[in-house]
């Protein structure tokens, strides 16, 4: 090929001026995102890192940097107090998740039967979700108080033998926390399942009925399996709420009677801020984080990957 330059203006196209606006437009989105990202990186991930570090130090009242390795964790797992908190969390979260899901699913299926007054019932089931755990705790604390609440009322009504003193009973107090928490959250789970049910194609259900499926079979074989995403979401949200269950315990039982309703969230708070055992408090927070990570990371990963 011979290079024959005749008239460059004709042979070659002119270059456009460098377009600063286009360059800037490429940077603006990243600039807009960066403050949020910086906040999160520092205040969430930086702080997580800091707490993890603290959990390996001998910090007591204030953060110090004497490295003690896994000593805090060893201490933590030997503490009877922590043992109680973890046991309570297992009982609480297990019952809480199962009951909320069961009640929520049942109410959603019932409400989905062309119920008259659905528009009245739905908000009644759901309104506790709008309340603060502190308000919920206050209401239930009194309602369950044997001296003045339900038990007292039953006695006044002449049912002298009625006894419901769980909130004062070391062995049963944790179940009152479950009760109040289920009261608060089950309506929300109902709403999630209801939305799932409403999203199911009616024509497919009609087809299943033509195939001769009974109502029971319809739900068990066709409908409930399709609610899988709602189950998954409910599980994730509920377990997230359960492990953070600090406010409710504080308002309802204050961790008592004794330490009977202590959970990791209250444990962490009292060891860090009132008992001046910051190293142990930090290590308990790390354990809580790891539990959430085990649940959330696979969930988020699958959600975000599918959305691509």
């Amino acid at each position, binding site marked *: 090929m011979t290079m024959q330059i005749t008239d460059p203006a*004709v042979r070659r*196209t*002119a*270059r*456009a001026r*460098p*377009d600063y*606006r*286009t360059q800037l*437009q490429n940077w603006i989105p990243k600039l807009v995102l960066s403050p949020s990202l910086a906040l999160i990186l520092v205040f969430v991930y930086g702080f997580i890192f800091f707490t993890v570090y603290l959990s390996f130090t001998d910090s007591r009242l204030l953060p110090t940097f004497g490295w003690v390795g896994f000593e805090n964790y060893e201490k933590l797992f030997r503490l009877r107090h922590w043992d109680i908190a973890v046991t309570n969390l297992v009982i609480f979260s297990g019952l809480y998740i199962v009951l909320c899901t069961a009640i929520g699913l049942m109410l959603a299926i019932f409400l989905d039967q062309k119920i008259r007054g659905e528009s009245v019932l739905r908000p009644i089931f759901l309104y506790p979700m709008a309340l603060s755990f502190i308000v919920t705790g206050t209401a239930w604390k009194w309602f369950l108080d044997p001296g003045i609440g339900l038990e007292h009322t039953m006695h006044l009504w002449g049912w002298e033998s009625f006894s419901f003193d769980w909130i004062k009973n070391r062995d049963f107090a944790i179940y009152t926390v479950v009760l109040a928490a289920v009261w608060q959250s089950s309506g929300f789970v109902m709403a999630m399942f209801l939305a799932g049910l409403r999203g199911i194609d009616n024509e497919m259900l009609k087809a299943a009925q033509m195939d001769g499926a009974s109502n029971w079979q319809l739900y068990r074989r066709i409908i409930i399996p399709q609610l899988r995403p709602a189950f998954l979401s409910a599980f994730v949200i509920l377990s997230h709420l359960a492990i953070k269950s600090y406010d409710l315990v504080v308002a309802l039982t204050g961790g008592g009677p004794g330490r009977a309703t202590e959970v990791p969230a209250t444990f962490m708070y009292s060891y860090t801020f009132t008992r001046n055992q910051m190293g142990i408090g930090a290590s308990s927070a790390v354990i809580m984080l790891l539990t959430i990570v085990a649940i959330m990371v696979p969930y988020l990963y699958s959600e975000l990957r599918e959305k691509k």
Partner: protein
Amino acid sequence: MGFLDISNATKSYGSLEVLHKVDIQVEEGEFLVLVGPSGCGKSTLLNMIAGLEEITTGEIAIKGTAMNGVHPSKRNIAMVFQSYALYPNMTVGENITFGLEMHGVPKPEREKAKAQVAKLLQIEQLLDRKPGQLSGGQRQRVAMGRALVRDPDVFLFDEPLSNLDAKLRVDMRTEIKKLHQELGTTIVYVTHDQIEALTLSTRIAVMNGGYVQQLGTPKEIYDTPANLFVATFMGSPSMNLVPVRIVEQGGGLAAETFNAAGETVYLPFSAPSAELRSYAGQTITLGFRPEAFTDPGGADRDAGNIVELDSEVVVTEPAGSDTFVMTVLGGTECNARMRADVQVRPGDVTRFALNMDKAVVFDPKTEKRIP
């Protein structure tokens, strides 16, 4: 150098090249249609012209100025989108003038331009409505109005008719063609509909797999498709493709094949090229369109080389204006376009007339047309 120059433009996502060295020169006033199946790269190419997607290598120039890296709004182009992309919160009038407003055109001029365009497209009575209150056809007009008002160098259309119902689509097609004739604008138009491509364009680029398969006038594309892909993609019903053996016959060349009953049929070529001669004895693919294969009474009187042959009818499909008659040649089904009132029934053996002037041949290995 054309009005719109696409030279060696490629597009890659990471290591995946989706558009391979596209070279197209568009002259001022031309109506270029990019047509191909979905995923062929036609919309990507259009977006690259618009500046909505970066050009990986190569260059796109408008009026001699390279547009690589230039912001879409600085290219003096306008685009009509498949979904019309009307701003739902603005009235029709505001939709039309938004671009002028963004380019700092003073209000009185905007109003004047809006009135002109509204009159041209007969949407004056819609100017105060929101897009949500319009029918599909009206939205389409507004979208075109928004493009026209800018008076751009190049109009880009991205499948603008695919959301309309069949009848409206034909009407709007005519309207777009009229507009182009009146205004003499330069248009690049993307569609997957080969009929739209043939009716609207002054030139067509048929695309597949990120390559331009053929660039030419509608007549070139239709009559002499460059390869088997273009042959089958363009035209409906699509071209009949029959495996034939090239044999010498009386000094000329003929295609040897067999009919539904297995009887050998010879189809002599009108003026075989030297290239075709070199295929003597080999099996190649013979292509002919349904309208070149008809009943003897309906055959083109001006044609110089009509071959008649008998074959059994498999299926008939009356289509109102014509009747399509299916038979088997060389083991493949062939579609003949006969007159509407032709009397044939499945199972009959009837006489077909094949216009060999219009036949084309392809090398089955390279899939390219043998000239």
